[in-house]
């Protein structure tokens, strides 16, 4: 069962979510502040971080950035406010997904599983390592390298890239990507896709403003290539 670190300042939410997840067999560690959470990271070594955005002192977005500096730990944000801006900033900071409070434990757990799930292999006799331009994608080892240099991709970025490269030149609508990569329902928040594409482009494209690998088709969605 995955180990979850929950950073949440409100005691009742902290306790409620901890209780709910523990009942479902997760190992949960909680922290009331961003600083305490960051301190617990090294020692607890969680599989996933549940991060409240509104924290006293160091806020969730700052924690998210700090974590992303040296780790590709899956991060799910908890947002209490329906605050658009916070969601967008959080996603830009590298979060993989977000959950709006209040949410049932069932929902939280489903989201945790979705983020942690390894992308399913399309099967067949694909070579272990594919080369697309300067990119080499290792589907078995789940690594991506550009010009031989390994790229640090967050889980959602990696899954998106694997999904797109599995069918180069095929156009996926954002709703389709939400369903397949994030396992959201069809009517999810397309900004998740847009934010993830931006982050991914910043890492793999030579000039993110003029993308070569991940191309936008206005009104339809995204596709990989053609190179």
């Amino acid at each position, binding site marked *: 069962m995955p180990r979850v670190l929950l950073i949440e300042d409100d005691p009742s939410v902290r306790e409620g979510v901890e209780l709910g997840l523990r009942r479902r067999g997760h190992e949960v560690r909680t922290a009331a502040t961003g600083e305490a959470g960051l301190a617990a990271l090294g020692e607890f070594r969680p599989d996933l971080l549940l991060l409240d955005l509104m924290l006293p002192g160091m806020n969730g977005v700052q924690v998210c950035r700090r974590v992303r500096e040296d780790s590709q730990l899956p991060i799910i944000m908890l947002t209490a406010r329906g605050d658009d801006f916070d969601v967008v900033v959080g996603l830009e900071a590298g979060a993989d997904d977000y959950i709006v409070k209040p949410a049932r434990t069932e929902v939280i757990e489903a989201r945790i599983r979705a983020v942690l799930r390894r992308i399913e292999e399309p099967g067949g006799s694909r070579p272990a390592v594919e080369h697309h331009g300067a990119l080499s994608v290792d589907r078995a080892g789940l690594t991506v390298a550009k010009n031989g240099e390994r790229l640090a991709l967050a889980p959602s970025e990696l899954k998106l890239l694997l999904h797109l490269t599995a069918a180069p030149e095929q156009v996926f609508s954002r709703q389709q990507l939400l369903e397949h990569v994030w396992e959201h*329902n069809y009517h999810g928040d397309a900004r998740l896709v847009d934010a993830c594409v931006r982050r991914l482009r910043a890492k793999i494209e030579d000039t993110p403003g003029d993308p070569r690998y991940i191309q936008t088709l206005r009104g339809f969605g995204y596709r990989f290539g053609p190179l």
Partner: protein
Amino acid sequence: MKTCVPGEEPGAEHEAGPSAHAPGPSARTPGPSAHAPAAGPGYGTAPENGAGETRPRQEDAPARSRRGRTRGRGPRPFGLRTRLVFAFLLVAAVGCGTTAALTYRAARSAILEQTQNTAVSAFRQQVEDLNISLPLDEGSLRDRLLHIARQGKPRPWRVYAEYGTLRVSSTDRPTSSVLTPELRARVHARETTPHTGFQRVVTNGTPYLTIAVPAVFLTQVGGEPQPTGLVLYAVMELREDEANIEALVTAARDGALPALAIALIPALIAARGVLRPVRELRHAAASMGRGRLDTRIHAKGSDELADLARTFNESAAELERSVTELRRAEARARRFASDVSHELRTPLAGMLAVTEVLDEDAGSLDSDTARAVRLISAETVKLAVLVEDLMEISRFDARAAELHTDEVDVADCVRKTLSGRHWTDPEQVHAVLGEGIRARLDPRRFDVVVANLVGNALRHGRAPVTVRVHADGGSTLVVQVSDRGPGIHPDVLPHVFERFYKADPARARSAGSGLGLAITEENVRLHGGTVEAGNHPAGGAVFTVRIPL
């Protein structure tokens, strides 16, 4: 891809009244994606320029169009300007006319009188100097007359003499047709006191002055002069004097025309002085009518129009103040509703997370405790939905609801909505979907719209519920949800989209939050569309959503 469309004015809020077929479920998607933005463009109703006098903005675009519209009305044939110009011209014309007439009369009589006096006294002098001896000798009399005729003053005259039946003149003809019987009578009537008579006569368009002087002789010094019976007449043409008078009339007329032309200038200035404030006032009033309560008029001077402008400004300021106050109060009320929902969310988040723990363990508790625990769990879930819906409504009220559009296949979208809620049994929900319609929609909001309508139909109507999707004329997306229930009572129809509207107050709370249809309507409006409720002639309620493609 963020598109922000400020919501339209939310419908008037009504007290929850009697009715039932109204509020549906919020039909929330079971994920965090069922979540809408809160922050957004501010509450865009505050006037940008609250204080300070501003001229009615003639520079900005609405003002330009306003001017255009004014011009469109065209010059009015009987407008203030025309009336003022006519009045001024009339006054000027009457003034000129009267002056000219009076001047003409006075000048004319002065000229004629002078001529007349000179002529009469000159002629009398001539007659007095006439030294005649009786009996009259026609030849010498004629010589005399010719002599007098040469002395005409101030103009030449012709001289005639009458004595009994004797007629002598200085001309070829012995008498003149210009001499009237009245003049003759006037001289002869005064035989006892001989008197000079004169008369102005116009013959064949030529004016003449005729003078009659009886010749007398003085019997002795100091005695009464005795008439001799001889009367001398002088006839003088006055054509030259008439020409002088004509010249006067022409001068008066020539002077009046420029005067009238000059009168136009003050007329136009006066019209402008009145019309400009009136026009400003009209523009300002129209601007106020469009909601620009900060409109003020530049009031200068101390006339009645300036007073009117000042009164307008004061009223406008007063109106603006009270509207601002009302808006503030309204904003406070909305903010309060929003704050309350926010505050409720945090404790609910903790509670909702443990409802499953309660549900699972309820079986091992004693029956009363188990019932209590299950009740708390169930109500917590409903409360969470209600709070979520309240948040959504308060975002609409604060116009902070944002539209995140994406181009989607509408049939696909509706299919996903139905399957996502397990409405897959065609006996329950039957879908007739026009294929290949692509539209720019906010997928999450469109999902809420369809799900709320179908959920409402299932709850308050009767299965099978039919969902129809088609494009009307290629410009409008039409989504129709109909059921086979009893339909909606006509009294209830106008209220179905109201918040917390209950057709029957005694009726138990439904599973929904009471905000479902209100949220549906707001979501459709955010897309620039409309939603209508009605009844099908064959029975059952029909909800029709129209969204421009």
